[in-house]
């Protein structure tokens, strides 16, 4: 195996491949990965004919509009592609992860975050009692 091939293989295994993020909502706040579509394997024949069923965006977050889609080729997908796509160009794997808005995934609302930083507001001290008469 040539050095170039080894480097390409290492890069593929360690880093995965390209990533495209389709931002469906403005990228503010924290998004959680959909349990239905997290590194979902999406197969295509000779890299051009879609075999897998389309990713259902409505079902991904339990009816809530998703925040974003990450499309990439993960480590496992890259390993599969080495044998099924790059050596014998038959089957190609993509990984799709649908990101749901925070607290709106099908698993229910996310736990509340930590309390805001800073000291808790304190009640004003009670007025001092007058000294007892002597």
């Amino acid at each position, binding site marked *: 195996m040539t050095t170039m091939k080894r480097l*390409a293989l290492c*890069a*593929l295994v360690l*880093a995965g*491949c*390209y*990533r*495209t*993020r*389709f*931002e*469906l*909502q*403005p990228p503010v706040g924290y998004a959680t990965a959909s349990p239905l579509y997290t590194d979902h394997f*999406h197969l*295509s024949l*000779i*890299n*051009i*004919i*879609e075999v897998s069923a*389309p*990713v*259902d*965006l*409505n079902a991904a977050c339990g009816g809530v*509009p998703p925040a974003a*889609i990450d*499309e990439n*080729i993960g480590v496992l997908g890259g390993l599969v592609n080495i044998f099924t796509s*790059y050596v014998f160009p038959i089957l*190609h794997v*993509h990984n*799709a992860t*649908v990101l749901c808005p925070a607290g709106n995934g099908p698993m229910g609302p996310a736990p509340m975050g930590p309390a805001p930083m800073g000291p808790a507001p304190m009640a004003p001290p009670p007025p001092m009692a007058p000294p007892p008469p002597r």
Partner: protein
Amino acid sequence: MAGVLAAALASGCFNVTYTNPTLPPNGVVMQGTNKFFVAALVGDERVPVYQMCPQGVSQIESGLDIGDLLLTVITFAIYTPRSYVVHCGGAR
């Protein structure tokens, strides 16, 4: 096999589809190409779909179209573009 290949080439060759069956397309279609390099090992692209379709997305198709395939072959996969088509949903 040749017929399937021809049909795939004629249909645009997209190989990942994201669909929202509850939001019918409104006829507004946006297209673009993301640029990747070295057999798509290098590249990190963001597509602000929410700016293209303020009322929501009906479908996104992502993958290689004929031009992407040709460029990938001609450059020996040094330049490996991937295209996308966004179908907006909701009222026009």
